[in-house]
């Protein structure tokens, strides 16, 4: 297999059709009234919002903008509004700063220097707001996680990844950017550097230590059972770099699977209770 950027190129008309069909089918079968999603203004959430609006109609989609003062970026707010207008869905903006402040002051061991703990608290707080709206309005939560960050475990457990369906989770970040362009999402959004917005100046590629163009090809190779030395040779990079990606992928599996428990019973939740995802 030749690991060139072209392997990531798909028939985007077909991909769009399949994802929209998937969303529509799931919403209809679940009996939900529509979709609610966290709208950060980044390429992932804007793409999922656009697909959702095209799938079920903008009137059934609600984008929640959940800014907070520490990481507020006017450009993200502008991009969220732009997408909402273009794909004709509603948004609600709620400043979550007071809620976060309440958490900070009420957690006895809160330490503002612990960046990760604080950042995860933000992601989980956003999740709480999104699910409140979902419950209140009988809507489904549509997640925006992509395959690159999901495989890398680059997300907050029970935070940004929490959703009822996750329509772009089988597309790498570079593929999401291509799909966004196919959907005519403005280039400044499609090409905007990704950030989880957990602390100021946070950039995904900087934290992951690798460009998505390279990461996605490594992950694509691993997905296709290629050996790390072969991937490294083809991409003309060190084997260590590929091994590091593979190690991170494997070490974060606990974030992607059902909770582990000690096997005691005849059939066990998450292991050998093997039921269809949706009720039969």
């Amino acid at each position, binding site marked *: 297999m030749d690991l060139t950027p072209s392997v990531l190129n798909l028939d985007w008309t077909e991909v769009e059709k399949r994802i929209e069909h998937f969303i529509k*089918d799931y919403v209809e079968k679940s009996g939900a009234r529509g979709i609610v999603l966290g709208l950060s203004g980044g390429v992932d959430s804007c793409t999922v919002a656009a697909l959702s609006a095209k799938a079920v109609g903008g009137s059934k989609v609600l984008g929640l903008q959940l800014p907070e003062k520490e990481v507020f970026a006017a450009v993200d707010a502008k991009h969220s509004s732009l997408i909402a207008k273009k794909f004709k869905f509603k948004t609600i903006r709620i400043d979550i700063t007071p809620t976060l402040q309440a958490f900070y002051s009420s957690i006895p061991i809160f330490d503002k220097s612990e960046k990760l703990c604080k950042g995860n608290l933000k992601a989980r707080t956003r999740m709480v707001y999104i699910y409140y709206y979902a419950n209140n309005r009988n809507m489904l939560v549509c997640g925006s996680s992509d395959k690159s960050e999901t495989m890398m475990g680059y997300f907050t457990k029970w935070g940004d990844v929490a959703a009822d369906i996750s329509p772009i989770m089988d597309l790498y970040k570079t593929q999401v950017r291509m799909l966004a362009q196919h959907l005519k999402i403005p280039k400044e959004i499609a090409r905007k550097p990704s950030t989880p917005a957990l602390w100021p100046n946070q950039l995904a590629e900087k934290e992951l230590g690798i460009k998505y163009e390279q990461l996605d090809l490594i992950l694509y190779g691993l997905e296709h059972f290629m050996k790390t030395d072969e991937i490294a040779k083809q991409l003309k990079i060190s084997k260590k770099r590929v091994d590091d990606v593979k190690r991170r992928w494997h070490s974060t599996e606990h974030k992607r699977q059902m909770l582990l428990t000690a096997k005691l019973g005849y059939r066990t939740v998450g292991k050998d209770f093997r*039921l269809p*995802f949706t009720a039969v």
Partner: protein
Amino acid sequence: MEKEFKVALAQIECKRGDKNSNIDKIEEKVTEAKKRGAKLVIFPEMSLTGYVVRDEIYELAENIPGPSTKTLERIAQRTKTHVVFGMPELSGKTRATVFNSSVLVGPKGFIGKYRKMYLPTHSVFEEKRYFRPGYQSAVLDTELGKIGLIICYDIFFPEVSRLTRLEGAQLIVCISASPAVRRTFFETLTTARAIENTAFVAYVNLVGFEDGLQFWGGSRLIGPSGKILAKARYDEEDMVLGTVDYDEIRPVETFVPTLRDLRPELFDKLRETSEKL
């Protein structure tokens, strides 16, 4: 025996676990197909129950013949058609041994069944976890000639189709539950099986989503030269009719005489070699 007749390829979306609802849909489609002149109506793999039913299979599986096949027999008798459909079959000798089966009923009742031999257990498929494989090919004598039954992944193994052809089948019916990412495989292999066996191949696939798997439809009737005689839409419920005319086989069989040129001694070699893989 009829030498020329219409076949209806009824690609449906199933309501998982709801046999009554699926039987209602099957009856509706058979009635419609009959009005359009079909003598044989084919439904997808596991069309009685839906494909992704996992542990529910033990609740849903039935003996063949059994209650659901009896209902389908009545539908076939009432409409004077032949019907092929798929279902989980509970062994008559055990309590929880299940086969992935294809059933043929006709105007005179139950005709026969086939138990899938090749059970995919890779990627998203987990059939060996639930099903026991079949061990026999199925070539069933009908008023529409000898019909060979195969199921989905069997088509990746040319010997299954070949066996039905060598046993006299001129029409090979392949029922399927193939997800969209595998479309090109099936589009290629269905044509290949028709050409290499100089036989008609009727392929009928599911449509709809089941746990994130989208079945792509694209059912087709292929003639012995590889020509697509009827083709259903992708991804949506559809029913198309095509004509099987067994007289078309003769000129193809003389032009591409694959059966005349068959080399039985290679099968022994194949067996020896594959055992040592």
